[in-house]
Every structure is written in structure tokens, then in C-alpha cells.
């Protein structure tokens, strides 16, 4: 199985040998992903508004979050025979 070092080497070779470009892209992608995870969590905790969440995550993802949250609450209510 390829190590992180192997993967960086492969990507650097494919992109002309500049390892620093690969690392810069990796940081950008990683930070973007972590930021979206944090924004999802903040939205669910009510720390950002729906409008702010839509601006950051997009309407589809916010709709899915709302639906998944509602589904989880319905699941618990059904499970505990409250629904």
C-alpha cells in the first residue's frame, strides 16, 4: 500500500516535479473539507443561520442536513414509541 510519501512523489512527478505545489493543494483541499465539516456542525448547533449555511454549503447540502436531522428525530421517536 502506498505511503503518504509515495503519494506525494507520484503527484509531484505528474505535476512537473514541484512538491511544494502538491503540498499547497493538499492543504487547500484539506482546509476546505475541514471548514465544511465545521460549518455543518455550527449550523446543526444553531450557531449560524440557515441563510449563512446555504451561502457556505449550498442549498442541496443544507436541505439534506435538515432532512437527515428530521429523520433522526423521527427515528428516535419511533424507537421509543413516542411518535
Amino acid at each position, binding site marked *: 500500500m502506498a505511503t503518504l510519501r509515495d503519494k506525494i512523489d507520484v503527484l509531484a512527478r505528474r505535476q512537473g516535479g514541484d512538491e511544494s505545489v502538491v503540498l499547497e493543494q493538499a492543504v487547500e483541499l484539506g482546509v476546505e473539507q475541514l471548514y465544511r465539516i465545521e460549518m455543518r456542525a455550527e449550523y446543526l448547533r444553531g450557531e449560524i443561520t440557515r441563510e449563512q449555511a446555504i451561502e457556505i454549503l449550498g442549498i442541496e447540502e443544507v436541505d439534506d442536513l435538515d*432532512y437527515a*436531522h428530521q429523520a*433522526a428525530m423521527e*427515528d*428516535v421517536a419511533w*424507537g421509543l414509541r413516542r411518535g
Partner: protein
Amino acid sequence: MADIAISDTGPLRHLAEIGEHGVLAVFARIIIPQLVVRELQFQGFWVTLAAAMPRLLTVVPGPGVDSDLVLLSADDLDSADAAVLAVASDHPAHTVLTDDLALRRALKRRGHTVIGSLGIVARAHEAGMLDLTQADGVLDRLVDESTLYLTRGIVDDAKQAMRQDSPSA
């Protein structure tokens, strides 16, 4: 009397992934379309599930190709999901188990009762199979160790909801 359920691949797989498929015994019987069995075989979970609960699981043939295609075009579902939808249409009183939001939406539009892995764990708690701490632990492992895609904040809210008015709260 425990419910009879029709299951999609997700809840069976996700609970088997963390070794908690025993909670499926909250149901009297679980009907599984053949296409779902094929997915579980491909993913490597069917042998475990079938061996653990041979009398609980009932495999039924799925719908024909033509009806699959109609359902696919209407709801943008894959063929196993479409088979679940078709079997559920034949048994409207049965609870349907799925963690797939698109399938859940399609089933709810048709008036079915739809429950995901979280609901099964909550029912296992209500039935006395898991105490509150054990149920919390299973929910945490579903998020951390299974392939169930669920945001942590949603599970934390579900755990909080279970504490309110739960049998052992």
C-alpha cells in the same frame, strides 16, 4: 407483537459492520429483496447476517426489470432501492428500514413508515436490549466505525432526544 420490516442494504450493513446486528431482533421478521441480498453478498456481510439470524430474515424475489426501470426513472434510485420500494408497495403496513435519504423520501411520499439505523437502536433500547449507555455507544460506533454517513451533530441530538423520556432516563 414486534413489527415486520422490509429492509434496504444500509441498516443491515451498518449494524453488521460494528457487530451490532443482534439488535435487528426487535423485529419479528425482516423481508429482504433478492437485489439487496446481492449487494450484501458483494459487500461481504450476507453470510454473517444469514448465519446469525436465519429465521429472522426472509428473502423475496425483487420486481421485474420493467417495473425497476419505471421506479428508477421516477425517483432516481438504484436497482436495490427500487426493489425495496416495489416490495414495500406490496406490503404497505410493514415498516421499511433504510439509511438512504433519497429512498426514505420516496417511501415517505407514498405513505410508508420509514426507519433508519438510529431508530432500530432506539427501539432496541426501548425493548430493553440495550441500556442508555450501551445505546449511546452503539450510536457513537455507527458514526465513527461504520460506513453510515451521518453528521456527528445529528447523532448527538438523537442521543439527547433518547435521554428525554427514555425507559431508563
